[in-house]
């Protein structure tokens, strides 16, 4: 019988290339790292072939690690909220621009990301440093007496992360918002909704794929944004990812691997929460 492949197997084929690439070049190394994370840290080798749970046990029992995890979660939450609060209006604005305007805006926001984080941090130092723009103009105006260091603080890290992550949020949201048919807003108006309520009840839920995408990108990037955190936070404000790098500099690969998995698990949990809260699939009429 010359029955052809049904459409679903074609769909299956579509999933194959990413599965294969990631399987070979992500899952395989990851499995190896998982194995490593259960080995003992070694002074004479990458790791010693002695199975142990200590690398994980440490993370979830030690109060210092717990503090770092709490701090990581808190800063992620704050960055997420700020990104959403600032990003949404901007995306809303961008979605109303012409296709060309949106394109230009997209570029304006993406191009700075191409500059190395290290260099961008110089920008921040030049702005926030003790002798930076803010400090010197404030002293100039006489608002503060002595130059103040705005760097190496929670605020600096948040600000730094915002500058890098906002574009991801804005572009995700803009993509989503532009696809929403205006007739839905019109329908809401016809039902007596004020613009604000029409936004809350219709536009916002219909943009949930964009919100989910934006939030996920921002979460994942915040969790792994080592360079920005290190440059703007300094050693006083370390997050989980900083500890991964500290483990590497001290040649403790098993521990670095274990911390990485902890990070991965936290990220995936947050991703699941985002998925559950934002429910991007409801746009297609599924609860």
């Amino acid at each position, binding site marked *: 019988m010359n029955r052809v492949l049904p459409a679903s197997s074609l769909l299956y084929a*579509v*999933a*194959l290339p*990413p*599965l294969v*690439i*990631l399987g070979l*070049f*992500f*899952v395989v*190394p*990851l499995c190896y*790292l998982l194995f490593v994370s259960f080995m003992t840290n070694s002074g004479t080798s990458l790791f010693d072939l002695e199975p142990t749970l200590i690398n994980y046990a440490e993370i979830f029992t030690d109060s210092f690690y717990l503090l770092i995890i709490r701090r990581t979660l808190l800063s992620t939450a704050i960055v997420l909220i700020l990104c959403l609060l*600032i*990003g949404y*209006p*901007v995306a809303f*604005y961008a979605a109303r621009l012409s*296709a*060309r305007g*949106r394109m230009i805006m*997209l*570029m*304006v*926001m*993406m*191009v*700075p990301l*191409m*500059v*190395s984080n*290290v*260099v*961008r*941090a*110089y*920008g921040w130092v*030049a702005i926030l440093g003790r002798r930076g723009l803010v400090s010197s103009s404030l002293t100039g105006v006489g608002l503060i007496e002595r130059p103040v260091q705005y760097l190496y603080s929670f605020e600096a890290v948040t600000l730094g992360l915002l*500058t890098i992550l906002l*574009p991801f949020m*804005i*572009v995700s949201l803009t*993509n989503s918002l532009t696809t929403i048919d205006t007739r839905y807003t019109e329908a809401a108006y016809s039902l007596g909704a004020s*613009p604000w309520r029409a936004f809350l009840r219709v536009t916002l839920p219909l943009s949930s*794929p964009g919100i*989910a995408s934006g939030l*996920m*990108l921002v979460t*994942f990037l915040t*969790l*792994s944004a*080592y360079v920005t955190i290190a440059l703007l936070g300094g050693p006083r404000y370390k997050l989980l990812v900083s500890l*991964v790098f500290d483990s590497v500099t001290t040649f403790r690969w098993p521990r*670095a691997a274990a911390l990485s998995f902890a*990070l991965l698990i936290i*990220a*995936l949990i947050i*991703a699941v929460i985002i998925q559950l809260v934002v429910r991007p*699939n409801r*746009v297609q009429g599924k609860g």
Partner: protein
Amino acid sequence: MGAVFLRLIVGIALTLIMGPILVVLIVSFSSGDALVFPPPGFSLRWFVEFFGIAEMRNAFMLSIVLALTSACASALLGLLGAIYVSRNRNGLSTFLQMLIMAPLVFPALILGLALLLLYKTVNMSVLPGLFIAHVVVCLPYAFRAVLTSLQSFDTTLEEAGQSLGAGPVRSFMLITLPIIWPGVLSGWLFAFVVSFGELNTALFLTGPGIVTLPIEIFSYLQFQGNQLVVAAASALQVLIILFVLVLAERLVGAKQLVQR
């Protein structure tokens, strides 16, 4: 009132995003020796200096090529993955989604090490290895962007295409793709940007003589490298990429106008 508020936030956001880079851009034209803002005067000396460093030039070229190729590859793979995820709600779809997103958060340095070990065992040479690593790292961005668009795409349009005799591939190319094009484009841009700035995975994967620009900059700054040279390099980077983008927009952008 609302409009003013909106503009204000747009202004704030653009300032945040552009601020530090603008400072660096302006400072790169400094005539002074140190990175201070505002600069004491203006000159092009740091650009001249930059061009004198062969390693920087080579790294810049490598990074551009790498970013272009890996952005294309990730956009393609991300598109494929997003198609599957948006059309299926099963275990594999959830798994695939998580799998594609995972490299985003897994500390790249560690991933780089594991990849290096893998490459050593299969004897992969440096350039393809670097390319694959970039694809793995950029894929999540491209994937998410495309998925966003696909989730709001009305699939009856594809059915219409099939009823007109277009196979699934053709209806995808001729109907779905043009409509979700902005999503694919921003996915590609995401990937390009990320690849271009990717530092940590590549730390382990670069080889003697094969260095990407972020690493070159990073190492240059390791030991009393002049920050202004790096600022000039960055400024140049931004200008060249802006130029390419504007050119691309001129070439393909007009087609976009009617889309909504």
